[in-house]
């Protein structure tokens, strides 16, 4: 594997969901993958989430919801994030058990715009919805998403270094 950049990640629950072990699990998993994690805990309103993210300016925001209200809570959270100019492009991923019906408890999703539960993920999400209940061995897609974001950060950092070098006067 290429030496991808370490990411600053915010892990957060959603507004009505008080489940916490899922957040603990994600924090440990992502730290194990080598990233820095700020775990905001459960039950944040959209405004609280946006304020916290504005402060820490993460490379990636991971939302988790398992109580069955994830679809509506998740969309509200993303709307609040996207309302902040600083967070307009920050990648967001959500996963867990997103609905109370069976439709969201199947396999992991694949794309950012994938239809979920009969509805559609608005373009505003700009990230991923992993609607299944992946077990650790099934976290491949999640990991691939991290690698993409991580590689992009590496390229960005490398680009900046190159730019710095180029603009350094030769003496």
């Amino acid at each position, binding site marked *: 594997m290429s030496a991808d950049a370490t990411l600053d990640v915010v892990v957060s629950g959603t507004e009505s969901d008080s489940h916490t072990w899922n957040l603990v699990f994600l924090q440990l998993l992502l730290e194990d993958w080598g990233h820095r994690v700020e775990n905001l805990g459960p039950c944040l309103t959209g405004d609280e989430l946006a304020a916290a993210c504005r402060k820490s300016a993460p490379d990636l925001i991971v939302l988790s919801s398992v109580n069955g*209200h994830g679809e509506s809570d998740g969309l509200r959270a993303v709307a609040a994030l996207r309302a902040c100019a600083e967070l307009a492009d920050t990648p967001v991923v959500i996963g867990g058990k997103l609905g109370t019906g069976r439709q969201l408890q199947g396999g992991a999703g694949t794309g950012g715009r994938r239809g979920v539960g009969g509805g559609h993920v608005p373009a505003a999400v700009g990230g991923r919805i992993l609607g299944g209940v992946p077990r650790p061995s099934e976290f491949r897609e999640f990991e691939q998403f991290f690698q993409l974001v991580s590689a992009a950060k590496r390229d960005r950092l490398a680009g900046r270094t190159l730019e710095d070098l180029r603009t350094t006067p030769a003496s």
Partner: protein
Amino acid sequence: MTAAARPLLPQAGSFGGFVAEARRAGRLVVQPRMGMSDPHLMREGLLATRRADATTVGTITLDSYTRVGDHREARRALATGVALNGYPIVAHSAAITRAVTDRIAGASFPVQVRHGSAAPQDIFEAVVAAGLSASEGGPISYCLPYSRTPVARSVANWEAACAVLARLGAEGAEPHLETFGGCMMGQLCPPSLLVALSVLEALFFRQHGLRSVSLSYAQQTHPGQDAEAVTALRRLAGELLVGLDWHIVIYTYMGVYPHSAGGARLLLEEAARLAVRTGAARLVVKTEAEAHRIPTIAENVRALETAARAAEQAGPAVGPSRTPGCTRRRSPWCTPSSASTRTSGAPSPGPSRTGCWTSRTACTLTTPGAPAAISTRAAGCTGPRSARCRCAAPQARAAAG
């Protein structure tokens, strides 16, 4: 229980009274975790619970929006027909909730509202307005696992909420509150902490006007340790809750649940045996769907009946003395001399249990639900028949539904 130390008998027809009555008859009360946002489905669920082949009480579990006080979002879901993860008792009118429980809830089938709110004042107002009087929670156990609310504010909220419920006492009803302290985060909490919280929350309820309470303990990962924890809980409650009507309720395992149906069933049966072995009066069940999704009504009924059968086979919670001369295998409840025959998971003997008791080992259970199942008594056993035995003398089943 602590009959001698309790001047106040549990009020007949109340939640506590129903459970005490079942306990006297040697029957474990079983209860689902059940809540749907559609009032028709909710009513259907209560009816099915009542009709289950078990001694049951009903449950209305509330949804997450109501728990965090976001009633606007709950109303929006109702308006758009999106299913919630529970029954939004504040968003629904009192008239709707009364219609849901009408001719179902009552003295022979008490219904409890289970929520998970650190600010339950409006929930308790809705409970009372709907003519109900039993709920659950506590200032710590409904705060830390359920919200970001600071504990001090949760305590103030719970004082106010207890006052709403205690008001019913003045009107002749006997409100009931159950601690959730025996569960907390669902998993990885030390039993000693759970026991302490359950007792403290029961004391809090008493301090704020409740006279009928139950103390919870959630099954953990070691049956022996669990039995000891419940024994400690019972002893502390006996010492500290003198004058109250109280009982112990066991929760079937509250952490990550087995994915297989068989594993789920085994864990539930284990919980039922724990309840019987420790003399608990009530058991809240979990279903085979637990690890995957919110259970259907049928899955809930199956879990209730599975638990009831497992409890029956484990023998009644309170048994008569061993008949002199009886040589049958001792149940874990037996106290007498030969401590070596006790299983390692058995609780320490209570002071009043001088006898031993043959219970189910003496007779075979036939079809569950059959009104007068006849079976042969094990040869040579002269022990008294248990209240649960359906052998020989036909016994009327509990008229639950």
